[in-house]
């Protein structure tokens, strides 16, 4: 069990933290009502049937436990149908979704959640807070994708819901899969045991070429266009500093064992301009300052033709480390002597490990997963990074956490207008540092 120590550490950290909560119950490994036997079928609902949702349900149904997919929900019928077809072909005995348990539209999630024991939340990030809130309200275990929100009000909802999940002993796994990847677990465990001393600085990167575009189609409402091209709109995506770079930022917070107290940075649309690319920036360079004065530098960009990297490095008082999702995990002492080098080949798939561990806990009736709090706080770190690059201001953690600038449209229908709209030339407003007010909606 390569994951044991890490889980154990996570549990220890959590218990330490929760001991401060007056009257908190002993939480770990208490058998729960319900799935006390592996012979019971665990009913799963999938909310969000795109490429990632299809991947997540495949991983859930590929665990060794007795699962059935019983309900599906998506804003778009075509996405749901394609996912149903692909999932049925691969797991035909485990897909039990009659047509009247396929729910389409903005409110589809509620009905799908009702029918399940465990809910997979894999829609675009903007909806995550309301979906997570509903799932926990209905008493369901949750696997939810990262990021878990796109703005401060969403983060507050997720943090409040995380507390309710703890009270109800509902397992919550967040798809920050580096937390379930052996190179990260093994290397960071050694860092936390002091292998390279105290972490005084670091650099985390997601520099890549950018993602897909679905060109506007005749007859599409603005709402449908934005929903199909969700990556380029903050109310759905949060910008790539949140949607993608949250992975690397989360590693920074994990290695530091805390969250930044203030954040400043700079960014722009430099390469990727035009009406296909909505309102998001294509580059952000951000400083994360922690309570002990240490600074982690964070850089993410979507450029073509430039050098790329997606990885994390940190410097300690006694050495340094390099980590990447490509299974690298290396530690060196101050003289450059390698202390640890995690094997990169024939490693387990972390996306599968997330589900293996979640469903093992659920099938044994144990409470072992409370990822929502760190998921929310690492997501907030990325959101504050966006507030900082858009505004050009230095932003304190607590100020950002309490901001009231919800990006969510007031009405969610296909004819309703999102808050950000294109001008006559089809171009969307892009934040101008010095003018953009990060704490106003």
């Amino acid at each position, binding site marked *: 069990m390569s994951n044991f120590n890490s889980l154990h550490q996570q549990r220890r950290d959590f218990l330490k933290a929760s001991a401060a909560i007056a009257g908190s119950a002993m939480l770990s490994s208490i058998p729960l009502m319900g799935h006390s036997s592996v012979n019971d079928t665990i009913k799963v609902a999938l909310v969000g049937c795109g490429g990632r949702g299809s991947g997540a349900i495949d991983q859930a149904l590929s665990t060794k436990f007795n699962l059935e997919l019983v309900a599906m929900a998506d804003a778009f019928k075509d996405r749901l149908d394609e996912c149903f077809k*692909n999932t049925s072909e691969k797991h035909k005995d485990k897909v039990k979704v009659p047509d009247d348990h396929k729910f389409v539209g903005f409110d589809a999630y509620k009905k799908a959640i009702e029918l399940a024991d465990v809910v997979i939340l894999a829609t675009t990030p903007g909806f995550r807070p309301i979906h997570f809130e509903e799932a926990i309200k209905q008493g369901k275990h949750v696997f939810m994708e990262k990021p878990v929100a796109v703005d401060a009000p969403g983060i507050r909802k997720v943090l409040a819901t995380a507390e309710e999940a703890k009270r109800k002993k509902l397992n919550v796994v967040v798809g920050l899969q580096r937390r379930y990847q052996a190179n990260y677990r093994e290397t960071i465990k050694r860092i936390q045991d002091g292998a390279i001393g105290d972490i005084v600085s670091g650099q985390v990167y997601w520099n890549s070429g*950018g993602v897909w575009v679905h060109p506007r189609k005749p007859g599409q409402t603005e709402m449908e266009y934005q929903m199909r091209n969700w990556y380029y709109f903050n109310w759905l995506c949060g910008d790539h500093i949140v949607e993608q770079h949250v992975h690397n930022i989360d590693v920074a917070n994990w290695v530091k064992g805390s969250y930044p107290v203030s954040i400043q940075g700079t960014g722009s649309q430099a390469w990727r301009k035009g009406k296909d690319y909505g309102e998001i920036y294509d580059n952000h360079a951000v400083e994360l300052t922690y309570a002990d004065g240490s600074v982690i530098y964070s850089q993410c960009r979507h450029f073509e*033709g430039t*050098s*790329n990297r997606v990885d994390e490095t940190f410097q300690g008082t006694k050495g340094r480390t390099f980590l990447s999702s*490509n299974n690298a995990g290396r530690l060196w002492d101050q003289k450059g002597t390698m202390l640890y080098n995690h094997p990169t080949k024939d490693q387990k798939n972390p996306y599968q490990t997330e589900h293996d561990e979640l469903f093992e806990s659920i099938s044994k009736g144990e409470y072992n997963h409370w990822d929502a709090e760190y998921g929310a706080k690492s997501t907030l770190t990325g959101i504050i990074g966006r507030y900082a690059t858009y505004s050009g201001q230095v932003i304190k953690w607590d100020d950002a956490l309490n901001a009231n600038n919800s990006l969510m449209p007031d009405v969610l229908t296909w004819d309703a207008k999102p808050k950000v709209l294109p001008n006559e030339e089809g171009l969307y407003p892009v934040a101008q540092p010095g003018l953009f007010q990060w704490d106003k909606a």
Partner: protein
Amino acid sequence: MNKKLILIIFICLNFSLSAQELKDYTQTINGTDLSFDMKAIPAGSFQMGSTSGKPDEQPVHTVELDGFWMGIYEVTWDLFEPFLYKDFEAVKSNDGKIPVNVDAVTRPTKPYLDMTFGMGKAGHPAIAMTHYNAIQFCKWLYERTGVFYRLPTEAEWEYACRAGSDDKYTFGDDESMLGDYAWYLDNSDGTTHKVGEKKSNAWGLYDMHGNVSEWTYDQYADDFYVSSPSKNPVNKPTKLYPHSLRGGAYDDDANLLRSASRLPSKAAWKQLDPQIPKSNWWFPEAPFVGFRLVRPVMPPSKEEINAYYNQAPIPDR
């Protein structure tokens, strides 16, 4: 002139051209400042396989090949990226435009991950592309240049790597010399390197051993040599896995860099792709995979070219 006469002249011209013109050349890409070098590989025969390697390298058998050209270097990101990113191709084009026929080529989905894995771009081999992706790059090049480029067959690759040698490596059996010719586990520092920094083999090809494992066109079969035809053999691919790769990579030990060593591709190289259906274009867990180009002496017919380039991707769920 009637069409028949034109055809006859064309065929004669083509034949005489191909017989005489098998010499090294530089392929330029019109409208850009991109180019790459091709090495003439003469027709001939060689002993394919090894008695001292793994069972899939046996039996050693005689193979006879027509002449061809082969890329002196592995395909680099400099060439590959204009194919990957249409916007970038437009920027790299002298007039900022992309010809209509080139525009029509299906391009890779933009990878969510960084497919250089931080190992460098300029001068470095393009990596982590699927077999299908590598063939579609050849199609893009064909639309760009009018010249039919394709992947080497396994036999062509080994023939070109050996360059007349029957030994373990192109330079002989002495493993201690490998570092002069190749980037591999002992000297690579865990990363790809710019192409052409080590010594070439006797036929002027660089990095045949090491740096990145190179795609061949062939379906991998561990028993293919038992029944392989002797003249221009190829095990035509019909399944998504496995295809055969050759030459070993920066993260392989010396044994996997041998001229006869064969590497089958694996579905697990896509496990870090979190989406379903999985991408036809990328292997997020195979940063050690690249390729180099081949051009046959006798260009195939238009129908054969279309058949080569236009095979629908096999879905990967």
